[in-house]
């Protein structure tokens, strides 16, 4: 057996418990005397799931890095409803947000560069294309065309030093080519020809114009051949251990990673490359082909593709080499409400929540009853003074909540009077000037605001509440109700709402409203954090768009941009929700017209933790 002292010149420390792990412990080994095992802090390699693309698609373009990625173009599934896409999405390391649209919708499109200096070229509309477009972080602009119109080519480099190689051309069939073209930021010129003409190749956008790698693809059949480029010519290199095509690639000629592919079946397999040798790497969670990748060998990003000939995917996975174990955020089931309901008010957190009012369609009744949540189960609390539905959501805590707005259906009555809950009983609070059905509430019971609502039509009126009375404040820049809201009275965000659903957002500083970025899609009946959330860390869950279509999707807001987040298990709208992102819950809501849910979902955010590994002799 190896002698650590002889190798390292020092003995292994004996500790009764693992030390507090930081990066300074990387590579260190100790004996945990309590557990009786040798442990160390070593680099771990793994794929972890991340938030999905906003639009599932395959054969899309890729650029950027794992923390600043770019997805563009691609196509929806062949059957039913094949459609090429001009959509661009930007990845911030945790979720996707909408970018500028391509001038020309294409799939099997080439791409390289960065999120703020991207390059897209070639592709299929159908019909092979030669258009080139540059991205500046906001919009695409058309540039000089490729000499050879083609699709499914390899692509590497930057916006000012790009490389397009191989692909296939219009010929009445699929005819692979061996052309290489180099881009200098203005125009394309001819580079060295591939030894093996091929399309559907794997060639990461992170490679350079003078040190690129092309792997696999179709030559008429699937190939394992690999070639290296030195800026002028291609030379054959070590072949892949098996044939594969149309997969993702991240990294460089001397430190690459291939993942997914059609070989010919879709696969989870991944392989690492050091410039000479291919070795197995941890597998993706989901078999995929037509996927793309970007980033480096140690920090790669996989996204999109198809999981069968008819199903595109929005899956996103991150590959990391790190001493840290990253655990993706996810919703889990919580205790069931005693009364299924929608249009319900809410306050508090995942371990101390409250819902009140709403409508139970099974008994065609608007409710006054409240329920309190302890993180495990809901128990019935005291009734509000007035049964009401579409009541404002999200102000206060389980022991200091505010119910405002809403209406009762028969006889139809809207309410301006608020009710306050102190943890044991409801009492009447102040009365607003306007009706605020479905108002978006922020703040606390003594420093709240009811933002927008419905009084016969969507409204933009804001009224602030000080625990005693309402006062009129400045109006929002858009009119809506049943949107999401997050934050205190002096730093809040309101987004979406309707009806039928808008994608606006507004930020409030306690005095003025300013328009913010748009949400990923129009949405009505979305559940937000309420006053326990923040303007720079907000969630919007579920919602609705005419069809009717109920959403399970979730969006995050970081103070600037909306991005995708892990989805609810059950699509629902007009759901009560509350809590900061770290303690967010959603309960009830409509799952179809006339059918309410009683289920609760709780959000657990992403965690990144340095983790000791148990060392063995095998």
């Amino acid at each position, binding site marked *: 057996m190896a002698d650590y002292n002889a190798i390292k010149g020092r003995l292994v420390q004996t500790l009764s418990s693992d030390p507090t792990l930081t990066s300074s412990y990387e590579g260190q080994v100790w004996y945990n005397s309590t557990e009786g095992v040798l442990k160390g802090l070593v680099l771990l390699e793994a794929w972890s*799931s991340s938030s999905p693309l906003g639009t599932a698609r395959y054969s899309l373009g890729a650029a950027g890095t794992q923390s600043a990625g770019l997805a563009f173009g691609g196509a929806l599934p062949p059957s039913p409803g094949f459609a090429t896409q001009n959509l661009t999405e930007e990845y911030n390391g945790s979720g996707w947000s909408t970018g500028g649209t391509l001038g020309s919708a294409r799939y099997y499109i080439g791409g390289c560069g960065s999120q703020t200096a991207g390059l897209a070229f070639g592709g299929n509309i159908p019909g092979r294309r030669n258009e080139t477009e540059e991205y500046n972080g906001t919009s695409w602009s058309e540039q000089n065309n490729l000499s050879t119109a083609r699709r499914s080519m390899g692509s590497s480099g930057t916006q000012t030093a790009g490389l397009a190689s191989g692909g296939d051309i219009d010929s009445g069939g699929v005819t692979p080519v061996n052309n290489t073209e180099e881009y200098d930021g203005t125009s394309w010129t001819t580079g060295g020809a591939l030894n093996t003409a091929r399309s559907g190749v794997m060639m990461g956008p992170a490679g350079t114009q003078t040190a690129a790698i092309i792997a696999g693809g179709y030559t008429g059949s699937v190939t394992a051949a690999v070639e290296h480029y030195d800026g002028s010519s291609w030379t054959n290199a070590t072949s892949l251990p098996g044939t594969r095509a149309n997969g993702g690639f991240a990294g460089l000629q001397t430190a690459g990673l291939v993942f997914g592919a059609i070989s010919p079946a879709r696969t989870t397999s991944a392989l690492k490359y050091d410039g000479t040798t291919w070795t197995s790497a941890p597998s993706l969670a*989901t078999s995929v082909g037509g996927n793309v990748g970007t980033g480096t060998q140690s920090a790669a990003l996989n996204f999109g593709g198809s*999981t*069968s000939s008819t*199903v595109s995917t929005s899956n996103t996975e991150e590959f990391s080499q790190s001493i840290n174990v990253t*655990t*993706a*955020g*996810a*919703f*889990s*089931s*919580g*205790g*069931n409400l005693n009364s299924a309901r929608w249009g319900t008010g809410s306050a508090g957190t995942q371990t101390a929540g409250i819902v009140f009012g709403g409508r139970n369609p099974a008994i065609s009744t608007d409710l006054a009853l409240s329920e309190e949540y302890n993180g*495990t*189960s809901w128990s019935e609390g005291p009734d509000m003074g007035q049964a009401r539905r579409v009541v404002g959501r999200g102000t206060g805590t389980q022991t200091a909540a505010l119910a405002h707005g809403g209406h009762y*259906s028969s006889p139809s009555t809207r309410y301006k009077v608020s009710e306050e809950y102190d943890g044991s009983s409801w009492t009447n609070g102040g009365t607003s000037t306007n009706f605020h059905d479905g108002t978006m509430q922020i703040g606390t019971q003594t420093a709240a605001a009811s933002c927008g609502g419905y009084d016969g039509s969507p409204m933009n009126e804001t009224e602030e509440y000080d625990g005693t009375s309402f006062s009129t404040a400045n109006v929002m820049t858009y009119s809506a109700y049943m949107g999401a809201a997050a934050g205190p009275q002096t730093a809040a965000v309101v987004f979406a709402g309707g009806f039928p659903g808008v994608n606006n957002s507004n930020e409030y500083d306690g005095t003025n409203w300013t328009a913010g970025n748009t949400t990923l899609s129009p949405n009505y009946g979305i559940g937000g954090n309420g006053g326990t959330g923040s303007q720079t860390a907000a969630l919007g869950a579920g919602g609705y768009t*005419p*069809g*009717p*279509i109920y959403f*399970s999707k979730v969006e995050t807001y970081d103070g600037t941009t909306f991005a995708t987040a*892990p989805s609810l*298990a*059950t*699509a629902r709208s007009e759901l009560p929700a509350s809590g900061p992102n770290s303690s967010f819950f959603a309960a009830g809501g*409509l*799952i*179809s*017209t*006339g*059918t309410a849910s009683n*289920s*609760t979902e709780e959000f*657990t955010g992403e965690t990144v933790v340095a983790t000791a590994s148990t060392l063995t002799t095998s």
Partner: protein
Amino acid sequence: MALFIYGTATNTGKGFFTAEDRRAFFLRGYPANVWVIGNNEKGALWLAEKNGVEKTKSEAQALVTAEIDAAKTAWDNNNVEGESAEEKIARLGEKPSDVTLP
């Protein structure tokens, strides 16, 4: 291999599905207690542990369709004399639409 397992299971509340489950396999709930589950070992085990009943895709679709059809009928039959179509939608919401399982 099929992408999904289809089944029915009653959501019993806390612990019915965990964040770890959501990371390990696809899971989506539909009307009529129908669940669409990613077809891997952990997904199959989850349905068994929840005393779920595995269905074929067409059986699961039929359950969802029956639930939606019942909601459509209830919507059709819920009328107020003199009410316009717009007023009915404002009162009840849109007429339920078909749900197609993936």
